[in-house]
C-alpha cells in the first residue's frame, strides 16, 4: 500500500521521500526550506524541536513565506491523496499561499481508497462544530490554456510528501 501511495502521488507530480526517523525527515525539511521563512502554525512539538533553526513566518506574512509545513491525518493509496484537517483558516493559508508545501504522513494512516476514508471523514463532519477538511493530491494544476497541463497555479507549485516509517506517533501530538 505504501508503494502504491508513492507511485500514485508521484504520478500527479508530488515529490515523495521515505524516512525512518524524525531526524532524517527534519533534515530533508531543512534542505528544502533553506533560509526562507516558513508558514507552519501547528507543528507537532517533536518536529519543532528537531528543527531548531526554522524561521517561522507570522500568519500575516504567509503570502511571502517560502514554504508551508503540515501534517496529514491520513493518506489514500489509490490516488496518492493526503487528508488534511484545516479547520483553522491560518492552517489553511499555510497550505495554500506559499509556493512549496511539505506534508508529513505517518504511513500507518494510509488507506486503500477514498471510500475507506468515509469513517474518518464522517466522524469529523458529524460533530456539531464547524470543520474544513481537505484532500490534497499533488501540487496545484491547470489545463485551462489549450489543455496543456501546467503545474503551479494559485496554490503550491511543489508538493513534498515525507512518508514517515517506523514510530510516527509524534505526528499526532
Amino acid at each position, binding site marked *: 500500500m505504501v508503494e502504491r501511495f508513492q507511485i500514485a502521488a508521484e504520478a500527479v507530480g508530488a515529490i515523495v521521500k521515505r524516512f525512518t526517523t524524525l531526524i532524517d525527515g527534519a533534515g530533508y525539511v531543512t534542505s528544502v526550506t533553506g533560509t526562507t521563512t516558513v508558514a507552519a502554525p501547528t507543528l507537532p512539538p517533536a518536529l519543532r524541536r528537531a528543527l531548531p533553526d526554522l524561521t517561522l513566518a507570522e500568519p500575516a506574512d504567509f503570502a511571502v513565506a517560502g514554504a508551508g509545513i503540515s501534517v496529514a491525518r491520513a493518506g489514500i493509496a489509490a490516488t496518492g491523496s493526503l487528508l488534511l484537517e484545516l479547520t*483553522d483558516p491560518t492552517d489553511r493559508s499555510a497550505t495554500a499561499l506559499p509556493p512549496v508545501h511539505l506534508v508529513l504522513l505517518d504511513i500507518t494512516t494510509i488507506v486503500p481508497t477514498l471510500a475507506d476514508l468515509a469513517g474518518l471523514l464522517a466522524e469529523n463532519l458529524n460533530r456539531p462544530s464547524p*470543520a474544513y477538511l481537505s484532500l490534497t493530491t499533488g501540487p496545484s494544476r491547470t489545463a*485551462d490554456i489549450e489543455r496543456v497541463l501546467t503545474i503551479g497555479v494559485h496554490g503550491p507549485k511543489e508538493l513534498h510528501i515525507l512518508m514517515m516509517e517506523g514510530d510516527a506517533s509524534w505526528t499526532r501530538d
Partner: protein
Amino acid sequence: MDKGLIQQKLDNTFLRRALKNFAAAYPVARAKAFEGMDFEELRVRISGFKEAGLEQLPALVEQFTASAEKAGARVHLCTTPDDANRTILEIIRSKNADFLVKSKAMTSEEIELNHYLERNGVSCLETDLGEWIIQLAGERPSHMVMPAIHKNKEEVAELFSRETGRECPPDIPSLVQTARDSLRSGFLTGQVGMSGANVAMADSGTLGIITNEGNGRLVTTLPRTHIALVGVEKIVPSLTEALDIIEILPKNATGQKITSYVSFIKGPTGDEGRELHIVLLDNGRLRLAADPAFREALKCVKCGACANVCPIYELVGGHVFGHIYVGGIGLVLTPFFHGFDKAEEILKLCIGCRKCNEVCAAKIDIEGLIVDLRDRIRKPFGQKFLFGTLMKNRKLFHAALRTAYLAQKPFQGEGGRIRHLPLVLNRETANRSLPPIAERPFRDLVETGTGTGKSKGEKVLFYSGCLADFVYPEMCRDTVTSLEKLGYTVTFPQEQTCCGIPARYSGEMEVARDMARINTDVLLKEEADYVVTICPTCTMSLKHDFGKLLADDPVYAEKARRLAAKTFNFSELAARKAETGDWRLGTGKVPQTVTYHDACHLKRGCGVHEEPRKVLQELAGVEIAEMTDCDKCCGFGGSYSIKYPEISQEVLKNKLENIAATGAKTVAVDCPGCKLQIEGGLEAAGSPVKVEHSATLVARRIG
C-alpha cells in the same frame, strides 16, 4: 440556429483542432482513470440516489438548511435569479464591501451575477484561470469544466497583455505565472469570497468543492465572508453519496483520478465574525424535480462528459451547442433554466447518436430527453401537413414516396444517383450524392412473389423500415434471402408503415403514437416468433419508444411489451445461427476484408455490437479491419443531414478519413441510413470503396 455562427465555428481552425485533439485524448485518459473500477455500477448507484433525492427534494433542502444553520452557516433559498442576485448583493453591502473574489461556479453564470453586481457598483474578479480569460474577453464559457477551451495561447497572451499593461509572450507556463501574480492581490484584498459547490450533504450541512488550481481554497479562506452559490439539486443525503460523486466527477470530466483539491466545508471556520452564506438556487429546479417526465435532467453532476464525447460539440463548440450550460445536458437544461425560446433552436442541433448516454455519470437518457423536449416546443410551419395528414395515412404516404421517384428523375446523374437536387438542397448536399428512390419499392417486389415463403423454420416477420423499403429494396431482398438460407421462415406484412421516428424527432408525439398503434397491430396480427428489422432506428422505435408512447393506454401498452420482446435486429437473429451449422457455404464472392461501422442506434440504442462482428466473420466469412472510432456517428441522423448539412458533412468527413485509413475496400454496416450517408460521401469523393449491409454480404456468401 444562426447558420452564420455555425459556419464561423466550423471555419475556426484552432477551435476545430483543439476540440478534435481533446475528443481523441479524452477517452484514453478517461479509461485510464476508471481502470480497475466498475463505472457502470458506480453510475447506477449515483443515478439511483439522485433519482430518489429528487423525489423528495423539498425535504432534502429543508434538512440541509437546518444542518448547515446548526453549524453556523446562513442559508438563503432563492427562487429566481433575481432573488439570488439581490441576496448576494445585500450580503456584500452588509460587509461594506465593493469587491467580490470568485472561484468557479456555473450557477453564477446561470444567474449572470457578474453583470448584476457590476451594475450595482461591486466589482468581481474571476480567479479560475479559464474563467478569468473568459471574463477578460467578455465571453461566456464554452465548456462546463474547461471554460476557455476555445481560446488559443496567442489570444490569451493578448488579453493578459491588455490587462497587465505589459507584453505577455504566448508561452503557456509564463501565462499561468502571470495569472498567479496578477490575481494574488485579489485574494489578499477580497473582502468577500464566492465559490460554487459540487455537492452538498443534507445530514451534516457540509459542502464539497472539487478544484485543481488552488483558487477555491483561497477564496474560501482569506476573505472573512464566504458565499457559496449552490443549485438545490446538488444536495444529497450524506457523505456516502457525496463520496460517489467525488469519485466519478474528475474521472469523467477530464480523466483525472481525483483533482488536486477536494474540500469539505461545514459552517464558518475561524474566529468570531467570519461568515458562511449558502445561497441555494432554485430557478425552476424544484418545479422540474416534481415533473416525472423531465426530472431526470437534474441528476446531472456537471461533469461535462456529455460534451466531451458529442460529435456535434466537437465540431461547433459550446457557444453554438448550448446556452450557459453546454453539451447534451445543456440542451436539456436550457429550456428549464433559461426559457423555451432560448432552447428551441439548439435542441435541433442534436443528431441523436446517444454517445452522451453512454458516458453520463448519472446515467441520464440525455438523448431521449432532447427528443421529448422537442415535443414541447413550437412546431415549424409545413410540418403539420407532412406529419399530421400524410404520414398517418399509409397509402397516401407511400403514394407520395412513389411520386418522388418520378419527380427526382430529371436530377439523376450517371448511375442513377442524384447529383443535383432542386434549389436549396443543391448547395447543402454538395459533398454527398444521394441515392434515388427506387422505381419499385420492396413492398411491390414482395407482392409479385419475390423471396418469401421458402423455408419451414421459426417464423419471422420482416419490418423493413421506409428507407430500406423505398431506397434499398435489394437490401431487403438480401435480408430475406439470408434469413431463409439460415433456416427462418420470413413474411413481409404489407400493412406495415413508418415507425414514427421522424415524427418523434420532430416533436410530433401524437403522430408518433398513432404510428406506434398501427404498427403494433400489424405486427401482432400474424403469429410469429420474431420481428426482424434492418434499421436499428426502427428497432429502437419498436423495442423502446412504442412502449413509452403507449404507456398511458393499458391495452396498447401490453401489446407494445409483447412486440418489444420479440423484436430483433438482423444481426442478432443471424448470429444465433452462426454455430448451429444449419446452413451451407455458397459460391458467391465476398470481399476478404471489410471494416465495420457501428450504427449509433445499434450500439447505443440496442446495445448490439458483438453480434454484427460475429455474423461478418462466421457467416459472411470476412476479416474485419477495425477503424478508429468505429462507433462514432457518421453524421446521417435522418433529416438532420438536411437540416444541418454543413455539420453533417463535417462529421462524415471524419468517418471517411477513418475508413480510408484501414485500407479496406468495403465498409459493412447494419443500417440503411449509415449506408446512405457513407456511400454518398465516398461516391462524392470519388472513392471506389463500397458500403454493404451485413445482410447483403451474408446473402452472397451462404448458399
